[in-house]
């Protein structure tokens, strides 16, 4: 019997031979990430361990993105401690405004195909877009890795998801993951690794592939891994990554489930208020009023998301009574969007463009708070009641295209029905 990508990568890092689902291995970790939301706990665990040295701290990124900028003394002090620790131990520091951890990790060239990566964040699964096994952990785990270079892993069972055909213009990776959430339910892939393959994945640009891997977190997945191709290798080389070691699954690998989705049949999707797996096609809720539109986050704050929004809002004005915030995922994304004139397009249309960070996802910096009865539509990944700081408001989740189209009309709108809504990645906005 053959092996899945997860079994091969974990096995290769635990001594050479592929591992089997269900095995527990102690494996060498290639790179780690700690963000400011979990750093205080991680540094407590470092102190508790009391190791004489932390040889793998230099293979760790410290990212100041959640409390960016810090809204209180506690967060500002965590930032101070992170800067001091990074200085003392040679960790790589990404400071306030540099960007969201899941964007700066690949942009910084910290990972490559075949790698084993960990991060103190559920959405650390994002790096699977680059053919790596990457998963979310906690402070004790990163402490162990900084001290020993290794960590224990249970090798997960895998679900193989084949996306046949081609996505229609105006339909995005976000719509695929929302479809999966509707089918499997939140946590429906708990403990599992996902392999995303097929023509619709190959056709995606890197930005959209990152959305596909990232959003697997809402399915509860331990990892989501895509195959590497020429686009992957060119992107990694351009960002100074280490030499790639691409991994593919064997044809006779063992899967707990195989799912085939006809990508060409998908329409834009939306997760309704409060529940990420209450998913319907946009046409079913067309006309639902909104008054807050958010584009950003580690799920959909990349250049192609901003290009899509700008293609819709170019020369237009968002609906009266709607406020809109756009947060580029990183400083590099911000600069690229500025160079292309997209920030001017969005600002003229009535949106506020913020410095890069996690702010658009959750009411962590205190400035996104919603009023009673407000209805937000967001390109983020979670819509629990109160996520934006008010239990009496609601959040609907959709692609950047659907968010921009909805901001334009003031109601949930199919992007394919507005000018610019059928923009596709790979062409100028």
């Amino acid at each position, binding site marked *: 019997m053959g092996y899945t990508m997860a079994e091969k990568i974990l096995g290769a890092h635990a001594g050479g031979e592929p591992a089997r689902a269900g095995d527990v291995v102690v494996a060498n970790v290639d790179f780690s990430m700690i963000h400011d939301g979990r750093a205080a706990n991680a540094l407590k*665990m470092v102190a508790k361990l009391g*190791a004489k040295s932390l040889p793998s701290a230099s293979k760790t990124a410290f990212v100041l993105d959640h409390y960016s900028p810090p809204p209180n003394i506690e967060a500002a002090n965590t930032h101070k401690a992170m800067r001091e620790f990074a200085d003392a131990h040679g960790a790589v520091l990404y400071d306030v405004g540099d960007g969201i951890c899941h964007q700066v990790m690949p942009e910084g060239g910290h990972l490559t195909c075949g790698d084993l990566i960990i991060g103190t964040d559920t959405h650390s699964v994002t790096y699977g877009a680059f053919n790596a096994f990457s998963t979310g*952990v906690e402070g*004790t*785990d990163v402490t162990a890795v900084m001290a020993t270079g290794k960590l*224990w892993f249970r090798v997960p069972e895998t679900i193989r998801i084949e996306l046949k055909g081609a996505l229609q213009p105006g339909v995005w990776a976000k719509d695929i993951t929302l479809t999966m959430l509707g089918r499997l339910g939140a946590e429906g892939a*708990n403990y599992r690794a996902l392999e995303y393959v097929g023509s619709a994945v190959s056709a995606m640009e890197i930005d959209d592939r990152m959305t596909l891997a990232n959003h697997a977190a809402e399915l509860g997945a331990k990892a989501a891994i895509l195959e590497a191709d020429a686009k992957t290798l060119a992107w990694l080389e351009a960002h100074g990554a280490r030499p790639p070691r691409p991994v593919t699954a064997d044809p006779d690998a063992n899967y707990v489930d195989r799912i085939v989705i006809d990508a060409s049949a998908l329409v834009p999707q939306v997760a309704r208020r409060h529940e990420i797996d209450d998913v319907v096609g946009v046409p079913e809720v067309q006309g639902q009023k909104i008054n807050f539109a958010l584009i950003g986050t580690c799920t959909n704050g990349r250049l192609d998301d901003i290009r899509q929004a700008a293609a819709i809002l170019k020369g237009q004005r968002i609906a009266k009574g709607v406020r809109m915030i756009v947060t580029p995922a990183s400083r590099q994304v911000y600069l690229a969007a500025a160079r292309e004139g997209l920030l001017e397009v969005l600002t003229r249309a009535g949106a506020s463009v913020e410095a890069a960070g996690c702010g658009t996802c959750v009411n962590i910096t205190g400035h996104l708070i919603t009023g009673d009865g407000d209805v937000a539509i967001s390109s983020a990944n979670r819509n629990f009641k109160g996520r934006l700081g008010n239990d009496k408001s609601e959040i609907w989740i959709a692609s950047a295209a659907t968010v921009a189209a909805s901001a334009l009309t003031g109601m949930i709108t199919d992007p394919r029905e507005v000018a610019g809504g059928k923009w596709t990645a790979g062409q100028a906005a």
Partner: protein
Amino acid sequence: MNTHIKSRVHLLGDNINTDTQCSSKYLPGKDNAYVAQHAFEKTAPDFAARFKAGEVIVAGKNFGINSSREQAVHIMRMMGVAAIVAQSFGRQFFRNCINNGLPVVECDISDIADGDEIAIDLAAGSVTVAARGIKRTVAALPPAVQSILAEGGLIAFLQKHPDWNAA
């Protein structure tokens, strides 16, 4: 770590989010002792007042779902939770428990009620509620995981085995 646990059951439901029920995520500046006094009160009023050190939590599916802060496990350890038996666990929460020496058992929990006397044999892999005639076999944890639990968690384990040799 004791591999035989015999104590009283505190029953909780499905999809318990330990970030919202047992961490300071939405209580900025509050310490673990404060959060412990209010743990799980949104689903089980007076939980903290009724819970005594050495007792067991029994819960439904997806216990500890979502981002699952490690702090929740630190607080449960502070409260003296001896073990958690659940239909299923959130992936990260399960990991956090092992890393902090808190035994977790995945097991069918049907017919187990609040206040029952439960016996857990971690080594043999069994869960028993004698008064109800329940005896269920559960998969024993892999040896590497048992070694980490036996030392009281991953930090203590690495202090003793910095080369991971006992894992």
